[in-house]
């Protein structure tokens, strides 16, 4: 294997993993934009997406093409429920209080999944058959193409939604200034609910498309949550495009770190670079600087 093809392989691996981080980060961003909450349960949405698809397939005997949208739909409903039950009644409370509530919610969702599905790891069949494809000495799984494709489609869809639809513009308005948005006749509560539905959907989608490659279990959400959050910050909090790019960069950094530096310290390598970048650009790669406090 030549050095060039090894390098290509590192990048391909990094992009695949990075896409997961990116989709998780996208979910963070949507909720953050309407509420300023960092939703600690975001990783759990991703986990639920994968797990529900597995179990629709196993228990329900639902065929894969149906199990996938079904899982995504259920998780979206869970997202709405989370907002209605724990976030909406708490309107006006400090952001930190709401963040702790999402921590509680993540514990609850993880525990529920553990009781319902057990503690084992599961795999989901790939969306399309066929062996690995070779490109320049490196190999790609067909499922990776699904992952990259669906991630790109999601980002494009979000762009259209925010720029072309009334709801999307209303959500952006909430992000800029909630009070002003409310005065303009935007129903802020509905926008918050919508954002929870949206980020649950994006998260679940990520969980489902990745399960065939990465396997899934009730506790995969924790790590994804941390990495997704890091991706958000790297890209600049509040910028959906930045979130996805941040995710891919983080994934590639880890992969290159493992391949070229040391596999034991690969996450440390990625985080050292992330911190170094933050010290130079305190609001991420594409973030607008604005004053924030607890």
């Amino acid at each position, binding site marked *: *294997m030549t050095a060039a093809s090894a390098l290509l392989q590192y990048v391909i*691996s990094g992009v695949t993993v990075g896409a997961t981080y990116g989709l998780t980060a996208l979910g963070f961003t949507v909720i953050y934009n309407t509420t300023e909450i960092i939703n600690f349960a975001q990783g759990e949405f991703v986990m639920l997406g994968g797990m529900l698809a597995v179990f629709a397939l196993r228990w329900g005997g639902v065929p894969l093409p149906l199990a996938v949208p079904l899982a995504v739909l259920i998780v979206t409903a869970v997202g709405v429920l989370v907002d209605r039950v724990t976030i909406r009644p708490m309107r006006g409370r400090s952001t930190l209080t709401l963040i702790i509530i999402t921590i509680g919610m993540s514990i609850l969702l993880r525990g529920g999944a553990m009781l319902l599905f057990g503690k084992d*790891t599961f795999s989901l069949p790939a969306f399309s058959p066929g062996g690995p494809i070779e490109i320049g000495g490196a*190999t790609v799984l067909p499922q990776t193409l699904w992952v990259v494709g669906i991630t790109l489609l999601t980002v494009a869809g979000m762009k259209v939604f925010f720029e072309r639809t009334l709801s999307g513009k209303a959500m952006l308005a909430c992000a800029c200034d909630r009070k002003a948005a409310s005065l303009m006749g935007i129903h802020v509560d509905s926008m918050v609910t919508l954002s929870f539905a949206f980020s649950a959907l994006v998260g679940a989608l990520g969980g489902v498309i990745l399960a065939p490659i*990465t396997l899934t279990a009730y506790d*995969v959400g924790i790590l994804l949550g941390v990495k997704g959050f890091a991706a958000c910050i790297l890209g600049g909090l509040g910028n959906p495009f930045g979130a996805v790019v941040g995710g891919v960069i983080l994934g590639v950094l880890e992969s290159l770190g493992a*391949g070229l530096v*040391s*596999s034991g310290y*690969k996450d440390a390598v990625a985080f050292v670079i992330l911190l170094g970048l933050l010290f130079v650009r305190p609001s991420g790669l594409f973030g607008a600087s604005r004053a924030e406090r607890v």
Partner: protein
Amino acid sequence: MHSKAIACLIALAVLAGAAATGAAAEPIRIGAIFSVTGPASFLGEPERNTVKMLEESINKGGGVLGRPVEIVVYDDETDATKAVTAVDRLLKKDRVVAVVGPSTSGSTLAIVPKIEEAKIPLVSCAAAKKIVDPVKKWVFKTPQSDELAVKRIYQYAAKNGIKKVAIITASDAFGAAGREELKALAADAGIAIVADEVYGPKDTDMTAQLTKIKGTDAQAIVCWGTNPGPAVIARNRVQLGIKTPLYMSHGVASPKFIELAGAANAEGILLPAGRLISEPQVPAGHPQKKILAGYIKDYETKFKQPVSTFGGYAYDAIMLLVQAIQTAKSAEPAAIRDALEKIKGYNATTGEFNFSEKDHNGLTEEAFVMVRITKGDWEMLK
């Protein structure tokens, strides 16, 4: 109506009877700490199930020394600090006569000082050699030390002409202990380690590490970890078209591994394993045969899921304690400990235990057989 009333009366009588016998004999209380939740729950869950099952069957069979056995199980959530409070609860609140577990080496090492202070025997279900080396008076363990598994692999590899290996290990307690032994024992086996890679236990893609290994002249890859990491490695290896033989540790010796990796990706993988997973191929006359078959049947009927090697560790721990209590004719901690140390030639699910003053694990490499995964099943190698 009438029959219902009679049934009620019978039930009452049975209950009263149970209460009466319960009152007559004070139960022997054994404590257990397992990682039922958290990252090591794949160990703790079958262990908890196993001891609960044993508690039931022992008591159905009349208990030990005519006394019922009560096993108090606590979950340490795979957290060493929680294991410390759990063991204190067992020692000071529940006043147990012996403790089995914890599931992980970290938790075990964390509670050893408490155990030694309380002078209560501990039979750990964790693998690390450190637990019993140097020998601690009150501490025993049932799983084979990693050292034995590594020796088995190296023996087999050397026999097949392998001189250079690449190792890839998980950065958790299990993987790190394996890595240490792999490096320490290589020279003696005439094997050189040409790549030493690590992966995070929750990582989902190891193609980077394997790509690096692909660039070396390794004749075999040895992976040390527990699910799901090794399954991902098996998949990534096929994806990258690596033909180098892959050896795994006993940590993946469960049908779950083949399911996760996929039979096609797992084909040809070699590993040392206890006889539990390849029980059908254990010859009928083998001294472990009866106990293996019995445990598998009981467990699979009760829990409707396949047994794992890990549940076997807990099975052996409890049965060794029961054996010790019976030979000591006493349920006093010191008497149990002394009897435990004298157990010889005791066949259990993991192997034949021969404890002594110098050996509190009591197993040899004999406890392992090399198996190959063939068509989604285990094939025992000669």
